[in-house]
């Protein structure tokens, strides 16, 4: 499907949403998890679907109940994850890992609802773990951001992880 914008969003919107993405990455890198939660809409959906490597000419029908999802989270579940990270009992994060997120390829597109935009972006996540090993994960993201009052809130995020074998022992970080 072509991403043909209805009418391009105003420049101020593009700037504001792009800034929101950068701010989000900074809050997460700095472990300001409550600050991050405050950027999420009440009805947020946060998803990561499973992929499997198939031949282009594959003849098999889709799986009856879909490919499966690694993340299919609502606000309550994301809060629970944040609570876990803040519990003081996550041994693998103590001392803290060094995590840095780079956001790029940001494309802000108009959406049907006029207080919403659709946003494509690329996330590169660098994780330097407590044992000194470094893992690099890259993902594509398709978001919906909604303007509520003076701020933009994340309404939904579909993550596509670019690894058929995940190069890390866990996905203990937000994308």
């Amino acid at each position, binding site marked *: 499907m072509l991403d043909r914008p209805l009418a391009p969003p105003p420049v101020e919107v593009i700037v504001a949403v792009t800034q929101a993405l950068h701010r989000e990455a900074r809050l997460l890198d700095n472990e300001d998890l409550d600050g991050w939660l405050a950027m999420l809409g009440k009805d947020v959906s946060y998803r990561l679907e499973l992929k499997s490597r198939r031949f282009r000419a*594959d003849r098999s029908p889709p*799986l009856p109940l879909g490919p499966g999802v690694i993340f*299919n989270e609502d606000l309550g579940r994301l809060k629970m994850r944040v*609570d876990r*990270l803040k519990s003081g*009992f996550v041994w693998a994060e103590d001392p803290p890992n060094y995590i840095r997120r780079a956001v790029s390829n940001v494309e802000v597109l108009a959406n049907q609802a006029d207080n919403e935009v659709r946003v494509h972006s690329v996330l590169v996540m660098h994780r330097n773990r407590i044992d000194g090993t470094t893992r690099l994960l890259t993902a594509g993201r398709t978001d919906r951001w909604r303007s509520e009052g003076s701020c933009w809130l994340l309404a939904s995020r579909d993550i596509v992880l670019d690894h058929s074998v995940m190069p890390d*022992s*866990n996905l203990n970080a937000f994308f």
Partner: protein
Amino acid sequence: MRIERIGREPDYSRYMDLKEGWLDRRIFSDADIYEEELYRIFARSWLFVAHESQIPSSGDFLTTHMGEDAVIVARQPDGSIRVMLNSCPHRGNKVCFADAGNTRRFVCNYHGWAFDTAGDLKGMHEEYCYDAGDIDFKNHGLKNVAKVGNYKGLVFATFNSDAPSLEAWLGDFRWYLDMILDNEEGGTEFIGGCIKSVISANWKFGVENFIGDAYHAGWTHDSGARSMNNGQPFPPIDMQNSYHASMNGHGWEFGTEGVGDLVLLGRPKVMDYYNKIRPKMAERLGEMRSKIFGSVASASIFPNVSFLPGISTFRQWQPKGPMQFELKTWVIVNKAMPDDIKEEVTKGVMQTFGPGGTFEMDDGENWENCTTVNRGVVTRHERLHYRCGIGREIEHDTLPGIVYRGQYNDANQRGFYQRWLDMMTHDEFGKMPARPEPRLGNVAETRDLPGLFAL
């Protein structure tokens, strides 16, 4: 097919004393020992390759590994399943790079040799370049494994033509296995895809964790338990009514309270579902097994498959060198479940034991660091402690296997390494001691067991 290895015959009994309860750390990183494991364990055992539900129709296939050997598992037009090396007999290139799918042919990328789903060579690019007598098509197909077997939906294969039957290999462990494979009419299936991740740890750490290490859960997963349970840690274990049971290296550790793992799954609808079918399960499998199912439990099938009954994560630890494995995980459900319950199970599994799951996230790093640190040139000569509960062996009327009381125990881990040692030391299966003597004998169906075992 017989896999011979000539050369080193070290005395592996030097690496452990399981009566005393210690292991030598070198088995977790030594490259020679690892090579030997590939020959003596992976090339000779029955290995899990697929659930039959993953390849329901003719032409369906998936790719996986047996040890480090790449294989294709394919459904044939007659409904049977074949397992063959995923390597072209011409120059050896991999013939199938897809994870799964449906096809009529596998065509090699290098020179275009083409094989049907049985592995038979059917033709090639520019076939005229071969003169009469150059190539015998019959002998140049994809090499099929020695045996394929199916136990209630789980498909296993072995490279070893001398391997005992799959039923004999699983032995009394079938009594336990049936709690996940046969707790309801219709059997099981895998739903959704397969998640693969690479973990820089020795494969045995994954297996031993699931075979018996209930002990780590309360500490390692403290943050997960508290976040899912209003800040409360795991409740203490009932050491009187929980057990370890080990059979030829397979093992199941479990409570008998029936709900612990279902609570951890965190999906009330799934709990309700099992509570509803539990009376039937008791009729089917006996009272004891209906109480074990759903309790805090974990299990491994020798050598490299594990699962959590009740939580429904099913996984395989695929060796990739002495200090690395690939973890493959699936979700297993009862076929008879309505779709919404299957979806609830999947959600629960991903939220707990998916790679982003509240519990799974804590494990990998422990295994990685056990592996790398054990390798230190001085460190590797120190022994590791595997003595927990060494005096708690009991005879149990109902429970098959070598049974120990108390879920916090190293008993199943010792049983696993005992089998490891047996396979590393004995050339012939017939000479390996049964641990223990099986009770079930040739009984085909543990559901129908009379008296004692059906209790």
